[in-house]
């Protein structure tokens, strides 16, 4: 069974979310301070979990391009990363790209902090002038 793709449009307070099961690509782009972070991220995490459950060892690439996220969103992002790291530990090839505005020291620092949690997945900090 092929898992369903996921697409959620960007709003001023929540990121665009794209999951393409055919190419093994997940992307989150934009700002994130939704009214209820668990209500926003819960279904996304479930969708990613079911993708991971139905594709045993297909490689996954994740592109994160955040302009801003609040602390509740940071918690949800951490939950996503923990799920990805567990999967990478299980043998899947997982690559996470953390794109950020080179002038944004806070986003660079958050990327460094998240990087420390990855042992098996590859995590790359990518300063990118396109993120702004």
């Amino acid at each position, binding site marked *: 069974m092929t898992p369903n793709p996921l697409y959620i449009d960007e709003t*001023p*307070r929540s990121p665009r979310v794209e999951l393409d099961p055919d190419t093994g690509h997940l992307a989150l782009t934009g700002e994130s*301070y939704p*009214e209820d*972070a668990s209500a926003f991220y819960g279904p996304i995490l479930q969708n990613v979990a079911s993708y991971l459950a139905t594709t045993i060892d297909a490689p996954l690439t994740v592109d994160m391009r955040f302009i*801003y996220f*609040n*602390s*509740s969103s*940071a*918690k949800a992002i*951490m939950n996503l990363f*923990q799920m990805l790291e567990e999967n990478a530990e299980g043998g899947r090839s997982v690559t996470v790209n953390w794109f950020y505005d080179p*002038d*944004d*020291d*806070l986003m660079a*620092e958050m990327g460094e*902090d998240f990087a*420390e*949690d990855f042992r098996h997945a590859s995590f790359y900090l990518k300063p990118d002038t396109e993120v702004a």
Partner: protein
Amino acid sequence: MLGEDIYAFRSELQKRDALFAYTGFVSEDLLYALGTAVKQQLELKKTEGKVVRRVFSVFVEQVQNVIRYSGEQEWLTEPKTARLSAGVIVLGQDDNRFFVICGNAVTNEEADGLKTRLESISGMDGEALRKHYRTKLREDPDPHSEGATIGLLEIARRVTQPLEYDFLELDENRSFFVLKAYI
């Protein structure tokens, strides 16, 4: 009379270095609108991007704390989808530093919990705050919290001088909690 009265009211806020001040019910829609006003006003003052990001981040965490934890809340619709929470929000600037003040009623029990957390946060330097934040990110959330501890840590990481806070006893059950953050 009316003009004099309201002009004096405005002057009082300006004397207290307020760029804007709001009191009354706060909602998530208002957070978005005021957040946009914060960005616009800082942009008008040609504020450096790094400072704008810090002020905005502190503002969002502070206002979401009012929305989530104010002791005076009303739910707008059934099923419970939107809430209005009473509080005070001030964005100000003195000596070229920005500040964000938020105030709201809390139960005395919550006040005790907040005092403990704020005292512990006050004793941490930048590196300790960063480590504590990372630890809290990994933990399962406290069932009563919608993210408050981590929100306070985020605020504490962005300030340029120690957080100021106070609890004014309103009656035997409630206190008025005020948090002032300089960025």
